[in-house]
């Protein structure tokens, strides 16, 4: 039996954490060590915009210790991720470079959407009732140092995910300035939260019925002491601690006193969300980002098989966005049936993989969203919408690829555009290839009438034969096809051809 060890490092807003996991072939994937060190990087970022030299030195010291611990276990693979404290720090590029130089650890700065997706994965793996829970209206609420993330599920599908920038550390720092002037900090915290929460409710909640809440975040489990509570039990806990001094709470609940100051902002945020969503039951799986990093790794290495198709969540989230901008459902559906088979047929030649296929599918889903804003400048509008909309599970870089694919589906793609956006070479190549495929597919449904129910593809002698099975007139499609085919050929050195299969 082979044993593989993996280390997940999370450079968070107020804590650096490392979990070491072991995978034993066909047996188990589990945590064997967990080291946490308290360091409030977020305090620097949220107050000064930068992380100070002292904190960075301290971080390097801790990471060097982590390296020692990893070596102790002979850990081969690791992934170190940083979240908002580093992400939002102006000097994040310097930090990453310096840390790598000093410790050998490469810190990957996660976009919020990536981070939340990993959190979400950790919950999906960590909460055994997850799949049962999300059959009904469910919200995952995670209170972090920098922000709160809310993901809504219904009927097994991810409905929406939103990031609200009201994390516990951020709030604590905001309130700290005037906390001397009031006795009721909790009221101020509530007010700070209410505004953001109100907009969220209006926009995304509508009349969705949220039955369950899954909450994650530090120390909330210690406060509630159980993995499942009712809303009224939560309220009771809240009332029990809200007027207490942080030190008292720390002592009573066995929470390290240095973390106690974050408890009040945290529970107030939870409380307000619970009230707004009117959830009945609250689950606390007690997982963290490190778990997500590890599960993600394990999944990629095929150590574990997820019961849940996480890509479906990303797709579902994209469909919700398309719906919001009144995308043509039939056209999208037809286009998926055209574009994806072409992608699959071209796989060997294009060298693209599963992840790019997902990007193409999302590009297809979102390709018309800009029309909602302006019909004549749809390409640019689509681009802007996609760049401004977080899609859980996708990094900003990936979203940029999608936005570009959508944009250049209809407008010409020139080298100037590449320079202007400072696209990386590998991203540029993905964009070009996906654009070529999307253009061909789109041309096949130019009329948006879904004339081709079925296509059969054959790849032969530098030709991609697209045999369509339809009785309808395809003159329009055939007429518009050549320029798309030219571009496709330019990219892949393969000429697509349309051939109509005659019905007998």
């Amino acid at each position, binding site marked *: *039996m082979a*044993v593989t*060890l993996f280390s997940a490092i999370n450079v968070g807003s107020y*804590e650096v954490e490392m979990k070491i996991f*072991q995978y*034993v072939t066909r*047996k*188990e994937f589990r945590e*064997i*060590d*967990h*080291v*946490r*060190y*308290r360091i409030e990087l977020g305090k620097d970022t949220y107050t000064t915009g930068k992380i100070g030299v002292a904190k960075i030195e301290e971080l390097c010291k801790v990471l060097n*210790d982590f390296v*020692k611990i990893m*070596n*102790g*276990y*002979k850990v081969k693979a690791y992934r170190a991720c940083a979240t908002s404290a580093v992400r939002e720090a102006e000097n994040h590029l310097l930090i990453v470079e310096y840390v790598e130089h000093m410790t050998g650890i490469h810190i990957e700065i996660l976009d919020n959407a990536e981070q939340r997706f990993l959190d979400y994965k950790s919950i999906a793996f960590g909460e055994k009732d997850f799949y049962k829970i999300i059959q009904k209206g469910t919200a995952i609420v995670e209170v972090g140092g920098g922000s709160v993330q809310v993901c809504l599920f219904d009927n097994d599908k991810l409905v929406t995910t939103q990031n609200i920038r009201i994390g516990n550390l951020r709030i604590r720092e905001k309130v700290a300035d005037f906390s001397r002037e009031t006795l009721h900090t909790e009221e101020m915290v509530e007010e700070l939260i209410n505004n953001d929460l109100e907009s969220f409710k209006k926009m995304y909640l509508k009349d969705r019925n949220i039955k369950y809440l899954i909450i994650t975040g530090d120390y909330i*489990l*210690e406060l509630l002491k159980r993995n499942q509570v009712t809303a009224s039990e939560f309220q009771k806990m809240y009332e029990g601690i809200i007027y207490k001094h942080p030190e008292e709470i720390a002592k009573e609940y*066995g929470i*390290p006193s240095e973390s106690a100051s974050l408890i009040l902002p945290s529970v107030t945020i939870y409380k307000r969300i619970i009230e707004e969503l009117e959830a009945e039951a609250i689950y606390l799986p*007690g997982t963290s980002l490190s778990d997500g990093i590890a599960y993600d790794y394990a999944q990629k290495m095929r150590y574990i098989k997820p019961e849940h198709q996480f890509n479906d969540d990303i797709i579902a989230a994209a469909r919700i966005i398309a719906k919001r901008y009144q995308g043509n459902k039939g056209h999208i559906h037809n286009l998926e049936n055209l574009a994806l088979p072409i992608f699959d047929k071209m796989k060997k030649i294009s060298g693209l993989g599963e992840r790019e296929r997902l990007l193409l599918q999302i590009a297809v889903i979102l390709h018309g969203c800009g029309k909602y804003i302006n019909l004549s400048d749809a390409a640019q509008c689509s681009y802007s919408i996609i760049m401004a909309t977080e899609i859980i599970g996708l990094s900003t870089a990936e979203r940029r690829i999608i936005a570009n694919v959508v944009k250049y589906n209809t407008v010409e793609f020139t080298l100037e555009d590449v320079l202007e956006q400072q696209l990386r070479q590998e991203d540029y190549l993905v964009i070009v290839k996906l654009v070529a495929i999307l253009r061909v597919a789109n041309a096949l449904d130019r009329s948006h009438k879904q004339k081709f129910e079925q296509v059969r593809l054959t790849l032969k002698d530098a030709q991609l034969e697209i045999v369509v099975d339809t009785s309808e007139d395809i003159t329009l499609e055939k007429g518009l096809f050549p320029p798309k085919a030219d571009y496709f050929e330019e990219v892949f050195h393969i000429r697509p051809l349309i051939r109509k299969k005659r019905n007998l």
Partner: protein
Amino acid sequence: MNTEFYKPEYYRNREDSWISFNERVLSEARDKNIPLFERLKFLSITASNLDEFFMIRVASLKDMVHAGYTKKDIAGMTAQAQIDLILKRVHNMVDVQYSTYERSLVPMLKQNGLEILAAHEDLTEEQKKYVDRYFDENVYPVLTPMAMDSSRPFPLIRNKTLNIGALISKKGSNEEPQFATVQVPSVLSRIVEIPSGKDNVRTVIHLEQIIERNIGKLFLNYDVVCAHPYRIMRNADLTIEEDEAADLLKEIQKQLKKRQWGEVIRLEVEEGMEKQLLKILKKEFDIKNDAVFLINGPLDLTFLMKVYGIDGFEKYKEKKYIPQPVPALMGTEDIFEAIRKQDILLHHPYMTFDPVVNFVKQAAKDPDVLAIKQTLYRVSGNSPIIAALAQAAENGKQVSVLVELKARFDEENNIVWAKMLEKAGCHVIYGLLGLKTHSKITLVVRREADGIRRYVHLGTGNYNDSTAKLYTDCGLLTCAEPIGEDATAVFNMLSGYSEPKNWNKLSLAPLWLRERFTELIQRETEHARNGGEAHIIAKMNSLCDRDIIALLYEASVAGVKIELIVRGICCLKTGILGVSENITVHSIVGNFLEHARIFYFRNNGMEEYYMGSADWMPRNLDKRVEILFPVEDEKLKTELGHILQIQLDDNVKSHILQPDGSYVKVNRRGRKRLCAQEYFCQEAVQRAKVPKDPGKDRVFIPEESAGDE
């Protein structure tokens, strides 16, 4: 918590109780059923105990008095009242010590062929020649006589050293005699064997007598008016300002030097010392009469340990017990394999300490071992464990060692080891700021075919292979994953990382242990109130935590049967009507020092057993890193139950605390004699004889062809 149980009259002062403990040790020295030389040993122990007691306890009470601290202790006594009580009781005790020595031990020794000469005046001519020559050749070169006069101040007299004070006057002068002093060198043996001149008798004399006889040689131009031995005890309570001490190691080294200068809190002088000489000493040491002890006999009875070591009197000593092999480890070379098969309970010194040493040794060599982590509190000289750890580091293992520098009186020792380990490449942590790390835990991380496996040793005693032959302690070897996880978390915490989100099995002081004990005791109280089965048996060294005692009183009132086996200090009082009638306290003082901490809770039939490093003392629960661990294997639980029961049934070495505070030996009332320590010795020998698994014969099983099926 109900405050009605906090009344001072329900508690005994801890110093008072400690003196009673030392009296129990002294009673062993007076017990005629005990071999003569063993009695010497016990008497020696009472003396060294008293020394330490003065240096630490009396000293800190003195500090309190100086600081004007008026708060009363749990028994309602001020610091001054405690000092008064202590001095009164200690004077009595010293009287008993010396009457035991002079009236019974010395005559009996003489009867049995060992003559201890008390005064050089009693030497024969031949012996005089011998000692004078011994003085000239061995003693004189290492002596440093010091005189005091107008130009030379009173010299520094070092803590615990034996000295001879003298008055000397210039030859042919009428001036006032001067004070002079000379330290009895500690590099030479305190007792010197001299020719006895008789058959079958051996004679020894005290070194100070030899010096006294020759003292004139030290002050050649003077007449020695008088010369008498004296000895002082200084305040040696090591208080370290950790907040200010940037480097703990340096600070402790500094404090060690300072210890020589502490306030003098006890002066022992030979009875019959010249008045003027005594006056000078009292003045220079700034000490009052009640702290001056006039000794009728040789000062510092710890020399009796040396007498015990004299060869040739084996028949007057307890036969040396050889720790036995551990049955669960017999017939296997691979300790890890044995631990994988089952949890292993160790009971020292009945069972050998070797498995614990081997655990580290084997780990050091095993190619699959990744890391070894250990806490070290008091380590023996040339410890094989230290050597193994160093070797492990050299073999490329990750070795982390927490060396507790603050272990009382052992600091010098500890610093040496710590530095050596660092040199070998170990990661050494020098204790934690403000906390003493008293827990005894070793973690071995091993990479095996089916993943990382953690082997843990948890104990009640220090990783000290020498004391493990003298202290009774228990240990557990296990590779249970929940404990392994906790052990990893313990070392992460000790290395400065945040505490784990939860503990599986272990309870740690100072953060969680008090709460855990509170819950466990209260749970019994609840069971008793609900008519369930409730019973607590707790064995420890000392019991003086007010909150715990109050909880025990509450439990007793609720009807919980409480049997305590407390060797030393016990501030709990038994037999208080309506408070502690259900509590009994046993104290076993025997050849081995009772040291294990075992806790049993009936829990309405779902019995639980725990062991740990902590006593029920505030310092253990609040100021130290301690670990309490459960023993969950059914076989081992039965074994622990057996150990506790045998101790409770002891009717030889067991003393029972009476409502009046005195300790009385068990009245055997015709029952069979049972000495727990002897019993365990015999049992261990028996068990080591029995083949481990009689069913497993050494029969070879031939492999046969799987052919015609």
